[in-house]
């Protein structure tokens, strides 16, 4: 078991490019959206890049207009292809990663296929100051045990050719989430962290959920991706 430094993560310390990866439905997109907003409150130039070619619904691109109104550059496939079920990565994605005056958040697709897309940015990313966050929800089927999750982390690192910098605890069961679920996720993420030698950056909590002290820095989020009956 590796000794992991106690996380002292602060959003101010995040490197210029923040990439969110994980398994299907781990909450990457929702966290990436909120992370971009948080950065926007501190930095002038923020870009949010949608390189998720896997998910057909509930995507960053669905929030493009809303986020652009808030002054965030949202990089998606061009308008006429935005609904196409095709793996399109805008050439602007690399362009914005290279812009040194920009803070960049990358919402990557889930699973191995998402990591393949990230791997295509390897040569660009390796030259830039970046952090890669692996998002974990232990209430999702493919990350419900420590062993399974560790396997996924190792495989996704190999596929993407990039090293994961931090784990993110996004433990939740939707609108049924209680404090105990969030705290269970902290233990879970910590065990994984000890096994792979990666620190846990933060615990994600939806703004309307009451949760006392968390072990890891808390990152409160607002839900943007809604079902038609939640509008």
């Amino acid at each position, binding site marked *: 078991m590796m000794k992991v430094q106690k996380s002292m993560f602060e959003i101010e310390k995040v490197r210029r490019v923040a990439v969110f990866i994980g398994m*299907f*439905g781990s909450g990457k997109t929702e966290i990436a959206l909120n992370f971009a907003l948080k950065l926007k409150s501190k930095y002038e130039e923020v870009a949010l890049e949608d390189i998720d070619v896997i*998910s*057909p*619904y*509930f995507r960053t691109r669905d929030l493009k207009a809303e986020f652009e109104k808030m002054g965030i550059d949202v990089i998606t496939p061009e308008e006429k292809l935005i*609904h196409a*079920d095709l793996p399109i990565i805008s050439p602007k994605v690399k362009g914005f990663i290279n812009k040194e005056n920009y803070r960049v958040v990358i919402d990557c697709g889930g699973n191995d296929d998402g990591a393949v897309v990230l791997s295509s940015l390897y040569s660009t990313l390796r030259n830039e100051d970046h952090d890669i966050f692996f998002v974990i*929800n232990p*209430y*999702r*089927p*493919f990350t*419900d045990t420590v062993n399974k999750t560790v396997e996924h982390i190792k495989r996704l690192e190999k596929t993407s050719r990039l090293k994961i910098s931090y784990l993110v605890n996004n433990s*939740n*069961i*939707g*609108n*049924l989430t209680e404090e105990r679920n969030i705290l269970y996720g902290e233990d879970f993420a910590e065990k994984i962290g000890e096994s792979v030698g990666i620190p846990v950056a933060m615990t994600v909590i939806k703004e309307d959920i009451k949760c006392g002290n968390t072990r890891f820095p808390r990152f409160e989020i607002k839900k943007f991706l809604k*079902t*038609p*009956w*939640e*509008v």
Partner: protein
Amino acid sequence: MAEKVMVKGNEAMGEAAVRSGCRLYFGYPITPQSEFTEYMARRLPEVNGTFLQSESEVSAVNMIYGAAATGTRVMTSTSSPGFSLMQEGVSYIAGAELPCVFVNVVRGGPGLGDIQPAQSDYFQATKGGGHGDYHMIVLAPGTIQESVDLIKKGFDLADKYRNPVMILTDGMLGQMMEPVEFPEFVEPDDLPTHSDWALKNAEGENARIVRAFNIDPVELEELNIAYQKKYRKITENEIIYKEYFMDDAEYMFVGYGTMGRILISVIKEAREQGIKIGLFRPISLWPFPYKELKKASEGKKAIIDIEMSEGQMIEDVKLAIEDSSRIHFYGRSGGIIPEPNEILDVMNKIIGGDNNV
């Protein structure tokens, strides 16, 4: 831990099938259903099941035909264009009276259409789709938990009546995530063996034949009459629907699946405005709850059917209620979901006497 988990509709139906004792899945990925296929590819080997990706939906349906002839639980999932490709096989399966489950995660059509959610495959699901006088049992869930429950029920009904069952859902319910509680595992060894007709374990007995073919018109008609007798029995026993806010309702919505769920949000808003409106949500689309809907509509000033299509279930609503002067329809198509505010406007216009909606 026996706790609820966060699951996508597509994954949830896959897990529900595994827990219902299904160990055979033949299929082909298609958006917005592909997570289902992926889930089964990963999950079935863990329970000694067989996942096979076919070269097309045409071969998938014929693999199901073959597997179902052995009386073994078998299923596939697909989305609209994929299910169109399966129609010939579905007709053969219905004719041969074989139990199996199809899931159609409906997307916008016709043709290649798009990948957004729709309800425009209602006619295909409930009125045939393939050739001949046959019916699938068609069940339409409104939540992911209900999707899970109906998969289990679907397999049971398929076995009980030796009939194909369709779970008719849509991209929204396939793609979204919700907390779900899964049922206990049913072991394949505890399932009905169909030992009186299935093409297995018949060594030393008379040869068994499973087919949807009879060259003698008199005998073929007899077969058709027998099918109809079975369909009447299903109609008498297997109607499922739910009513919401109907106790004091002066008006009512009719909607199924995702649309039914949106209508519940609309009703809560309408009731805050003082409009007493309820919802009738058919869950079994075939057999359709004609009598139950007629009864529910009695005394209602207006009945408003809302669909994610240009109007398909509305035909059954009219057949049920007969008094067409009170029946109104509003629908959006092409993968567009009517929004709660849009439906409120339509409702207010209809209540205000405007018939041009």
